[in-house]
C-alpha cells in the first residue's frame, strides 16, 4: 500500500508518498501558482508520471488549498499535519514547531505525540514568508539570497512589523545609501524578532524547538531566530515537507 499526502500552501505545493509503513518513498514540490485547482491537477499528473496512482492510493490534503484536491479522500488542517510530519522527521514526540509559511506562520506545541496548543498569525503578513519576499523584491533579489546576505551585515534595524511600512523603511535605507547586506541584516532581524515574540508564548524549556516550512534551510534565519528566542532551534533537509509527510501519515490510517 502507498499513501499520499498533499500540502498546497499559498506559494508552494508539496507532495509526499509513503510506503504505508511510515517510510517516505518520494517527495516533490512545485510553485502553487495562481490557482490551487490547477496545482492539484498538476500534482495528479506528476504523481502518475512517478508511477503512483492518486485515484487508488489513500490521499489526504492539507494546507490552504486542502479543499480543492478532488482525489483526496480527506482534508486535515496544516496544524495537525505539520505536527505529525515534524514528529516523524525529528523523531521526537515532544517538540515545539515553528513553521514559516508563505502567508502564515504557525507555532505548534506537541506533547506526547499530540497537538497541545498552537498559535497562528492573524490576517497580517508580518513574520511570514511573504514579508521576506516583499523585502527581497525591493532589494532586487530573492528570499534565500537575502537571508544569506544578512550574514555579512550588521548594525542596521527597521522598526516596523507591517510589511507595507517596513518596505518604505527599506526604501529609505536604500535612499540613504545603506549597504544591501546591512539592509538584509535589518530585515532578517526584524522577522526573527516578530516570530520569536509569537513563539515565546508556547515554546517551553526542556523541549526541542524545530523550524519547518520553506525557509528551513536558511541557516542565517534559523540562527537569528535562535538568538532572539534564546533557544537552540534545529531543522533538517526535508522539513519543508513536514505538512505533506504528515498528511501522508494520516492517509496511511484511512
Amino acid at each position, binding site marked *: 500500500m502507498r499513501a499520499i499526502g498533499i500540502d498546497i500552501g499559498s506559494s508552494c505545493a508539496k507532495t509526499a508518498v509513503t510506503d504505508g509503513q511510515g517510510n517516505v518513498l518520494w517527495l516533490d514540490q512545485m510553485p502553487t501558482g495562481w490557482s490551487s485547482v490547477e496545482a492539484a491537477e498538476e500534482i495528479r499528473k506528476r504523481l502518475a508520471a512517478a508511477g503512483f496512482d492518486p485515484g487508488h492510493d489513500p490521499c489526504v490534503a492539507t494546507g*490552504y488549498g486542502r479543499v480543492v484536491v478532488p482525489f483526496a479522500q480527506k482534508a*486535515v*488542517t*496544516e*496544524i*495537525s499535519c505539520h505536527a505529525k510530519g515534524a514528529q516523524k522527521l525529528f523523531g521526537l514526540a515532544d517538540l515545539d514547531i515553528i513553521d514559516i509559511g508563505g502567508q*502564515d506562520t504557525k507555532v505548534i506545541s506537541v506533547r506526547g505525540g*499530540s*497537538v*497541545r*496548543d*498552537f498559535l*497562528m498569525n*492573524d*490576517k497580517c503578513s508580518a513574520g511570514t514568508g511573504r514579508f521576506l519576499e516583499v523585502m527581497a523584491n525591493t532589494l532586487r533579489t530573492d528570499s534565500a539570497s537575502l537571508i544569506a546576505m544578512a550574514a555579512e551585515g550588521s548594525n542596521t534595524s527597521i522598526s516596523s512589523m507591517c510589511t507595507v511600512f517596513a518596505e518604505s523603511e527599506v526604501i529609505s535605507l536604500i535612499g540613504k545609501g545603506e549597504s544591501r547586506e546591512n539592509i538584509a541584516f535589518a530585515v532578517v532581524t526584524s522577522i526573527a524578532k516578530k516570530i520569536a515574540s509569537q513563539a515565546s508564548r508556547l515554546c517551553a524549556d526542556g523541549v526541542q524547538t524545530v523550524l519547518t516550512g520553506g525557509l528551513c534551510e536558511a541557516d542565517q534565519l534559523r540562527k537569528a531566530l535562535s538568538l532572539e528566542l534564546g533557544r537552540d532551534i534545529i531543522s533538517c533537509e526535508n522539513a519543508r515537507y513536514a505538512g505533506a509527510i504528515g498528511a501522508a501519515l494520516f492517509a496511511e490510517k484511512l
Partner: protein
Amino acid sequence: MDFELPAQFAQFGDARKNGFLRVKKIKENGGRVAGTFCTFTPQEILDAAGVSPVSLCGMSEETIPAAEAHLPKNMCPLIKSSYGFAVSDKCPYTYFSDIIVGETTCDGKKKMYELLGKMKDVYLLHLPQGDREHALEQWTGEVQRFREFLEQRFGEEISDEAIREAARLRNKERAARRRLMELQKAQPPMSSGYAIYKALEGAGFYFDVKEVCRELTRLADQLEADYAAGQRPVSEKAKRILITGCPIGGVLEKTVKAIEAAGGAVVCFENCSGIKATIDEVDADAPDIIAAVAEKYLKIGCAVMTPDIRRMDLLRRLVSEYRADGAVEIDLQACTTYSVESYTVRKLMEELGVPYMAIETDYSVSDSGQLATRLEAFLEML
C-alpha cells in the same frame, strides 16, 4: 442566512425580519421604544413605563465607514457599527427610538454615547464596576434615578406594582431562554448552536414578552419531542464547544458556523446574549423592588467588572454542566477588557483541563479563511 435555519426555527428568523414592521406598528399606535445596547439595561423599569426595549447592537460592517468619520479606526466593530447606524439613519430601531439607554460599561461605549447624545436623546446609567460594599447601593440609586427620568420624560408615574409585574414576566422569559439553552446539555445536543443563537436573537424582536415566552417554549417543546422521537440533528461524535467572550452577533458566521461546519457542536454560549444574562432572576416580592432589580443586573459577570469573579465562577460551572470538550473565546478587535481578561480565562481552562483558544476578530470577512483553519485545527486537537 436566516433561510438556512432548520424548519422549527423559521419563526425566529421571521421575527428578526419582521421586527421593523412590529416596531413601526408600536409607534403608530402611540407606543414608546427605547434603544438599548447592553444586558445591564434594567428592562423591568422600561416595561413598567410602557416602553418597549429593542437592542441596537450593530452587527454589520456596512455602517462602519460612516462611523469612522467620527470614531477612530482601531476600535471595537460593535461600537462603530452601532454608531454608524445612528449617524447614517440606516437602522429603523434607532430611528424609531424615543430614547436610547446606555450604561458606563467599557470606555469605548461610554465615550460613544457622548457623541450619540448630540444626535439622539441618550440616557446613561452609571454602572459601578466592582465588588465594593456600596456598589449595590449606588446601582440601586441609578436604577431609581432612571425610573424618575422615565416618569418625567413620559409624564406618568411608574408604580412598584408595575415593576413587580414586569419582573415576574421577565423572569418567565429568562426561564424560557434558559430552558432552550439547556437542551444543549444532552449528548448529542438537541440542535446546532447556531440555530439556538439565532432563536435567542430573534426572540428580542417580538416586543411582546408573553409572546416571546410562548414561542421559545413551543420551540423547546418541539426540539425535545423530536429528540425523544429519535431525531439527532447533531452527530454523537461532534466535540462539544463552549463559547465565551464578547457579543458575537456580528461574527456568528465566521466563528460559530465555522466551528459547526468543521464538525464541532456549540453547546453553550456564555456571552451577553446567552447564559450570563439569564441565570439570575429578580425577586419580584422583595420589600424594595428597585433594589431587587438592581441586584439582578449587578450580578452579570462582564469583563468591565474588576475583579470579574462572577464570569470565572460561571465558566467553571458551565464547563462541567455542559460537558465542554473545548472552550473558544471570541473577542472583538480592540476590546481591551475581554482581551486582557482572556489570559485569566486561559489559566482557568488550564486548571479545569479544558483546551482553550482565543480569537480576535472584527466584522470584515478578510480573516474568514484563516479563522476557519484555526477553528478546524482546534477541533482536530481535541
